[in-house]
């Protein structure tokens, strides 16, 4: 398997505060990799640093053999990296279709119809609501929309920041089922999650982040049974 994205000794500072400390991780093509950790561990910072927000202070982010750590956000987005940001961030006053079309910005509208059709197959709920304003949908539907919007740019690597945030357990289950379906099409997924149980069950490999450092790594099953992880993130049962 070839490496798609790699973090090499990445440091990130917010002013005097160091948010990431010598973080190294790899994402291989066709894999689902998850990064779990508590609040404030630096998970979202890591994801945002791929887009240069904030810029890393040292280290390298290699994506398909190229260091993208100093590139602008739109450059990164137009080279096959798509993000579904934390808190969904859909466009509330736009219809579902319009939101999806916004996702085609990095690649242009050439495949828009075809891809939208595909998204509606993947997320039948969105088809029902295609002309509805996005703000009028439920949280789960909005999350589906955010994921679909990210997929509209035909990414090589899908970055997801806490897709389970603020959703009911049954909806979280649905979302993870959808992610499984997306992954089965060969999509590489890098998933940042607090919901360690779901994330580790889905992922091929996982990283555990504590205070800006990678504390542990292993396959999903390994981490799921690891006593330390169970204690800290799975409530000890």
């Amino acid at each position, binding site marked *: 398997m070839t490496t798609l994205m790699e973090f090499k000794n990445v440091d990130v500072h917010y002013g005097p505060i160091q948010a990431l400390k010598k973080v190294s991780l790899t994402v291989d093509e066709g894999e689902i990799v998850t990064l779990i950790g508590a609040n404030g561990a630096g998970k979202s910072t890591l994801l945002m640093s791929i887009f240069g927000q904030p810029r890393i202070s040292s280290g390298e982010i290699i994506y398909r053999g190229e260091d993208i750590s100093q590139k602008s956000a739109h450059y990164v*987005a137009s080279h096959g990296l798509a*993000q579904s940001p934390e808190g969904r961030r*859909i466009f*509330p*006053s*736009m*219809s579902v279709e319009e939101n999806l079309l916004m996702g085609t910005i990095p690649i242009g509208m050439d495949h828009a119809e075809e891809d*939208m059709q595909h998204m*509606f197959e993947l997320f039948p709920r969105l088809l029902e609501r295609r*002309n509805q304003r996005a703000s009028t949908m439920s949280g789960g539907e909005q999350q589906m929309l955010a994921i679909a919007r990210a997929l509209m740019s035909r990414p090589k690597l899908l970055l997801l920041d806490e897709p389970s945030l603020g959703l009911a357990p049954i909806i979280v289950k649905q979302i993870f089922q959808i992610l499984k379906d997306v992954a089965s099409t060969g999509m590489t997924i890098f998933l940042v999650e607090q919901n360690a149980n779901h994330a580790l069950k889905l992922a091929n490999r996982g990283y555990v982040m504590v205070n800006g450092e990678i504390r542990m790594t292993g396959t999903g099953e390994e981490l799921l049974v690891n006593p330390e992880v169970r204690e800290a993130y799975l409530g000890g049962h």
Partner: protein
Amino acid sequence: MSQAVGINFKKSSIDALIAGFMALILFGPIVGVVLDGYGFNAEFGRVAWMVGIVVVGRFIMSSFFQTEKGKALAFRYANNNEGVEVLPPGHKSKMVWIIPLVIVIGLVLPFIASKYILTVVILGLIYVLLGLGLNIVVGLAGLLDLGFVGFYAIGAYGLALGYENLGLGFWSMLPIAAIMAAVAGAILGFPVLRMHGDYLAIVTLGFGEIIRLILTNWASFTHGPNGVSAPLPTLFGLEFKRRSSDGQTFHEFFNLPYDSAYKYMFVYLILFVVVWAVLFIKHRLVKMPIGRAWEALREDEIACRSLGLNHVLVKLSAFMLGASTGGLAGVFFASYQGFVNPSSFTFFESALILAIVVLGGMGSTLGVVIAAFCLTVLPEVLREFAEYRVLMFGILMVVMMIWKPRGIVRVTRTGFAARKGVVK
């Protein structure tokens, strides 16, 4: 409660009394105390009238909203003011016939209207241009700009100083002023790229003031508060003066008796064409990807950036296009007045333009046109009440914010689709 449908007059009376008391506090010092030399006269009669009108009005209103009709009306307003309405992509408005009608009326107007009406309408159209420009920045891109008058001033002074120093006339300055204003927009845009909301408002407010202070204090170049005269437009070299030092004048060429109204007619007709051109361009822009990008940026900047939208380009384009429209308006203003000085470009102008955009409905083109005429033509029509103009302005604002917080014309937007009828 025994009375299910009836009107609760007790409640209405209480409402009326409260409103009357508020009116007494408000109008008491403003209307009741009239300065007379070093002393003052208390005019209780006038206050009583004002308060009486408010009490009766509030009573009628309160009673009305308890009837079935009133309830329905209140319900409609209460539920109808949220968000942008998205129409299906293929939607065609039934009001299209109104456009040719307005064009015909607009073209006939200068030949039947008096000179006074014409000047008022010209002023209205100038504010339409300003409103449309600011509408791009505030209404579409969601960047609160309180210094818009700066671009207006750049356009106006561009014409006046360009004529004085370089001998450039109206026609050459029209595009140059638009470009100058756009460049100024970019200069303002760069430092404020990272700012939002209040911070952006303060910086832009500062920008407007800087421009005005430069115009006031750089006396060797701008003649300071004395102002500069600005040229009138020419028709293929024909001037609209009584006598021309070089070449023929308009009335001599066409063998007409001299009439100062001709120049206003001409300014009006050019302005009319330019306003329609700007309306058309704006209409197309909103449907283009750049228009969508503006609206997306207004709704959620972080989402935009995660989608790979170049926010620098999007914000700067909004600033520059808005500014260039403001610059155009400035050229017309200078030409129509024949004279510019810094007192025309105070913060009050910025506030007025912003009021036009807010009253018209953020992002709504039609609303901006209506509001621009309301706020510029109405004060002229109501000359007799000139003293109460600002009071009326304030009342209008308060009433609008209560009843129509989304503006006169609610923003409806035709949805966009990749291509019609493909996705089933």
